[in-house]
């Protein structure tokens, strides 16, 4: 009898915990939806923060350029090196430029750029806005007659959405250069024939898909960083959590989006 009572209590408290978690999940979802819809509303309505958007574009690009150059170049070299043995088994090393071009343009370029940007830019946005929130700088902006959402959030999200596709194109270029050096050293392929192979393998759909995907990645990284920073809990711990959570959530969403975009682009192709 006693055991039945205990079981029923456990079961009741279990339901309560589940209900609470569900409530929290849906409340968070509503909060995120409101934040995203506010972004679109504020982005369309004047006044526009052109100067701040340009400044943020420069910040995003400047912060990531060195890291992206290095990782892009290494990705090109390593991917070429790793692909060679498999192709050489079939005596098809001449296909290396085509294979590398397809992999880098369709997947590696946008993905590597987005992951680097999520770590470098996303964390920085989360920490910056989190710190501004904790030290009442966002409130100070609001009471001085400036819309902090427009000035801080809209400008940063637009900057990441504009800059990350540009960085992606740059990563693709650098990665292909890395691949060319490797191919040139091993197969003595000339630059002209490497480029011909590369452009023969990719189509406009690939480039268009890559750019579109990067815009979505950029939007996600900016939005997640801003949301986490803007809603950080008070205290220095909140700033750390905002920065950390910005990176983890943005990376997770980037992979989900990569998977979804793969399905959508395959349908077009």
């Amino acid at each position, binding site marked *: 009898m006693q055991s039945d009572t205990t079981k029923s209590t456990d079961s009741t408290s279990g339901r309560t915990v589940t209900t609470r978690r569900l409530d929290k999940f849906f409340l968070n979802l509503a909060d995120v939806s409101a934040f995203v819809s506010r972004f679109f509303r504020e982005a369309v309505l004047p006044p526009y923060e052109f100067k701040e958007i340009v400044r943020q574009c420069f910040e995003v690009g400047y912060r990531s350029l060195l890291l992206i150059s290095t990782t892009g170049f290494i990705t090109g070299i390593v991917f070429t090196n790793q692909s060679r043995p498999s192709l050489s088994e079939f005596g098809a090393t001449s296909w290396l430029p085509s294979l590398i071009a397809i992999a880098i343009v369709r997947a590696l370029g946008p993905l590597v750029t987005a992951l680097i940007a999520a770590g470098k830019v996303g964390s920085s946005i989360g920490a*910056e806005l989190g*710190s*501004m929130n904790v*030290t*009442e*700088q966002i*409130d*100070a*902006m*609001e*009471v*001085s*007659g*400036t*819309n902090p959402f427009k000035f801080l959030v809209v400008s940063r999200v637009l900057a990441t959405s504009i800059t990350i596709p540009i960085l992606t194109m740059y990563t693709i270029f650098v990665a292909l250069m890395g691949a060319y050096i490797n191919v040139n050293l091993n197969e003595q392929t000339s630059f002209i024939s490497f480029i011909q192979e590369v452009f023969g393998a990719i189509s406009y759909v690939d480039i268009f898909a890559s750019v579109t995907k990067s815009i979505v990645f950029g939007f996600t990284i900016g939005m997640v960083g801003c949301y986490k920073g803007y809603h950080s809990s008070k205290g220095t711990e909140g700033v750390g959590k905002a920065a950390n959570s910005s990176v983890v959530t943005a990376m997770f969403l980037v992979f989900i989006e990569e998977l979804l975009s793969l399905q959508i682009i395959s349908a077009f192709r």
Partner: protein
Amino acid sequence: MSKATTPTETVISIKGLRKSFGNLHVLRGIDLEVKRGENVAVLGRSGTGKSVLIKIMVGLLKPDAGKVVVLGEDVEQLRGKELDAFRQKVGFSFQSSALYDSMSIRENLEFPLVRNVRNLSREDIDKAVEKALEDVGLSQTINQMPSELSGGQRKRIGIARTLILKPEIMLYDEPTAGLDPITSVEINNLINDVRERLGATSIIITHDLTCAKTTGDRVAMLLDGKFERVGPFDEVFADKDERIQQFYNYKFVD
């Protein structure tokens, strides 16, 4: 200490103000009227809702019940451009100073000016910034970053940034918190100086008795979510109420 002369017009009127955070009932029916040019110091222990009160007055927080009318405007009803215009007339000096870390002192001071006042020439902006810094005695910091300043300097720059728009009302949130006694006196003098120069009405949120006595024409004692006593400093603390006496007589015991 300077005091305002014969204030007449009511510029701040608070009636039946209530605010709760979950089960925590912070403000339980606040009533207060402040006349133009008057300085009112709001005293109370930490966590009693003093800062909440002034945040409601500038629309940073919404009240659960009651009405707050500032400069003839029902603050809760203001939206968008009307609210922005209203906020230009009400300066808010934050407890943490809230200087923008990524901007220099010059950029911090320019920020409200550039964004709120149209058609200002570069020369006008520079003059206004230099004047504001001169008024708080920190002209030499113009090209420094906030992280290079001391707590007292940050407070004064925070006040200068607020004053650059020449507000009619100043709200100070714990202006002397965390400062040494000498710097606290400097801040108190600055608050009085602001009233003399701008004729601004001020509400000073503090738990520092010296600050309240030096700057306030009246003191409002916030106890259990209500203003239990409002009046001149000496009158309020002549009250035999145990809670008021406890606040007044608290001394450091070694």
